[in-house]
C-alpha cells in the first residue's frame, strides 16, 4: 500500500491545498475538533471525531437558493448557482462516510437536488480509519467497519505512517495527484493496529446493540408504543441532536428581505422543533412526544422502509455526547425493545 510518514503529512496537505480546497479536522479547543479549511501548518486533530459532522460540506446549514427582485407587480428570479470548486475533505471517519450514502439516497433521488449534487460531484471524501473508538461509538450496529472506512479514498494510521487506499475513481485520482509524495509501505503494523481496534470494538459498551428489532416493517409495533411518553418527557425540543447528526437532513426554506431584494435560503430544520409541522390551521405533531417519535421512527423505521432496510443512523455517537439531557437513539432503541 502507498503510504506517507506522519511527519510528512504537512507536505501532503500543502500539496493538496495547492490544487484544490482542502478541509481537515483540527482542534478548535481542547476536546473539540472541527473541519477547517487547511492552511499551511494546521495540524490534524487527535480527537476521534469532530463536534459537527461532515455533512456540512454537502448540505450546509444555510445556503442561498435563489434571489428575487421585486419591481411593482413584477418579480425577477435570479438563479445564483455557480459551479462549485473542487475540494477534498480529509480525515472523515467511517461513520460520517456512511452518512453520505444515506444523504445521497435523499438528495440524489429524483428530482435530484442540484445544490447537493454540485458539491458532491466536486468533493472528494478521504476517510481515516479509527483506532481509538469511544464508548459512545456504535457504528458496528449499522454494519460499519471503522477500520475500513468508505469514501473516495481511505487512510489508515499505523502510528508512524498514513496508508492510502482508493475506493473510487475519484479517490484514485486523489491518490494519483499526491503519488509523488507517497511510497510503497508494509502493512504488517497496520494489520496489528486494526486487529487491536477490532478487539476494542468487541468490548465497547454498545457492541451488543443491534438493529434486529427495527426496520421498515415495525411501524405498527413501535408507533403506538407507550414508551414514547416516558422517553420524550425530558426532551427540551432543541435541535442539538439533529444538528450534530450526520444523517439528519430536514430543512426549511425561508425568505430574507435584505432591503434591496429577497434572498431565498435553505437552512437546516429540526423535526424536534415545535413549529416544524405547524400550519395555519393546526399541527399534526402537537406535542414533543410526536416530534420525538418522528425523529426516531424516521431513523429506525421509515427510512429503512423506503431504502431497502438501510437505517438512518450511522452510530457516530454525537447525539449521545451532545444531547443536553442525554436522551439518545441508543436509549430509545433499548427502551423500545424492552416492550
Amino acid at each position: 500500500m502507498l503510504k506517507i510518514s506522519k511527519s510528512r503529512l504537512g507536505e501532503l496537505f500543502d500539496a493538496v491545498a495547492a490544487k484544490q480546497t482542502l478541509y481537515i479536522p483540527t482542534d478548535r479547543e481542547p476536546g473539540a475538533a472541527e473541519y477547517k479549511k487547511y492552511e499551511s501548518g494546521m495540524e490534524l486533530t487527535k480527537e476521534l471525531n469532530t463536534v459537527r459532522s461532515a455533512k456540512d460540506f454537502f448540505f450546509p446549514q444555510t445556503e442561498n437558493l435563489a434571489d428575487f427582485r421585486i419591481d411593482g407587480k413584477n418579480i425577477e428570479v435570479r438563479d445564483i448557482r455557480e459551479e462549485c470548486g473542487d475540494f477534498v475533505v480529509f480525515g472523515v471517519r467511517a461513520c460520517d462516510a456512511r452518512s453520505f450514502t444515506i444523504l445521497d439516497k435523499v438528495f440524489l433521488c429524483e428530482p435530484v437536488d442540484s445544490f447537493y449534487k454540485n458539491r458532491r460531484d466536486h468533493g472528494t471524501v478521504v476517510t481515516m480509519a479509527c483506532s481509538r473508538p469511544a464508548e459512545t461509538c456504535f457504528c458496528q450496529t449499522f454494519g460499519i467497519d471503522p477500520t475500513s472506512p468508505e469514501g473516495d479514498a481511505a487512510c489508515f494510521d499505523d502510528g508512524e505512517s498514513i496508508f492510502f487506499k482508493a475506493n473510487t475513481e475519484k479517490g484514485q485520482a486523489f491518490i494519483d495527484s499526491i503519488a509523488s509524495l507517497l511510497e510503497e509501505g508494509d502493512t504488517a503494523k497496520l494489520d496489528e493496529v486494526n486487529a487491536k481496534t477490532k478487539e476494542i470494538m468487541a468490548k465497547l459498551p454498545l457492541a451488543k446493540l443491534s438493529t434486529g428489532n427495527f426496520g421498515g416493517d415495525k411501524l405498527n409495533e413501535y408507533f403506538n408504543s407507550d414508551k414514547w411518553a416516558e422517553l420524550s418527557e425530558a426532551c427540551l425540543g432543541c435541535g442539538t441532536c439533529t444538528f450534530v447528526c450526520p444523517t439528519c437532513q430536514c430543512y426549511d426554506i425561508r425568505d430574507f428581505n435584505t432591503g434591496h431584494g429577497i434572498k431565498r435560503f435553505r437552512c437546516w430544520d429540526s423535526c424536534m422543533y415545535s413549529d416544524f409541522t405547524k400550519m395555519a390551521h393546526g399541527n399534526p405533531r402537537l406535542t414533543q412526544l410526536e416530534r420525538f417519535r418522528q425523529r426516531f421512527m424516521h431513523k429506525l423505521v421509515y427510512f429503512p422502509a423506503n431504502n431497502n432496510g438501510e437505517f438512518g443512523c450511522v452510530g457516530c455517537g454525537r447525539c449521545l455526547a451532545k444531547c443536553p439531557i442525554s436522551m439518545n437513539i441508543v436509549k430509545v432503541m433499548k427502551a423500545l425493545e424492552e416492550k
Partner: protein
Amino acid sequence: MQVNENFEPVIVAFCCNWCSYAGADLSGTNRLNYPTNVKIIRVPCSCRVNPMFILRAFQKGADGVIICGCHPGDCHYTSGNYFTRRRITLLYSMLDFLGIERNRTRLEWVSAAEGAKFAATMEQFTADVKALGPNRRLEDLRCRKQ
C-alpha cells in the same frame, strides 16, 4: 482610524413624541442645520424603543443609532424615560462588552425647547460615527448594498 471623507453614515434617531421630536421640530423652525444623515423615527416615548429595534437597525446597515427622550423627571408618561435609561444603559454596555464601538450608540435627553441642543447633538454624533467609519461589526452582510 482613517476618516473617509466620502463616507456618509446612516444614522437612525428614535425620538419621543413629546420632547425630542418637538425639539427636532424646533431646530427645524429655527433653521438650525444638522447633517442629512440623521433620519428620525417618532415613538411615543423613549421607553418604546426596544433593543431589538437598535440591533435591527445595525443589522440592516445603520452606522449609528441615537435615542432621544425627555429629560429624566419630565417624561410625559412620568416614568418612561427612567426605564429607557436602565434598558439602554445595559444594552449599550453589552454592545461595548461585545466589542462594538461605543460611539455608534448614544442616548440623549432633549426637551421640546432644546432645538439647538438637538442640532448640536446630531452634528456631534454624526461626526463621531463618521470618524468610526462604516458599521462592520453588527451588519448583516446579506443586507449590504451591492
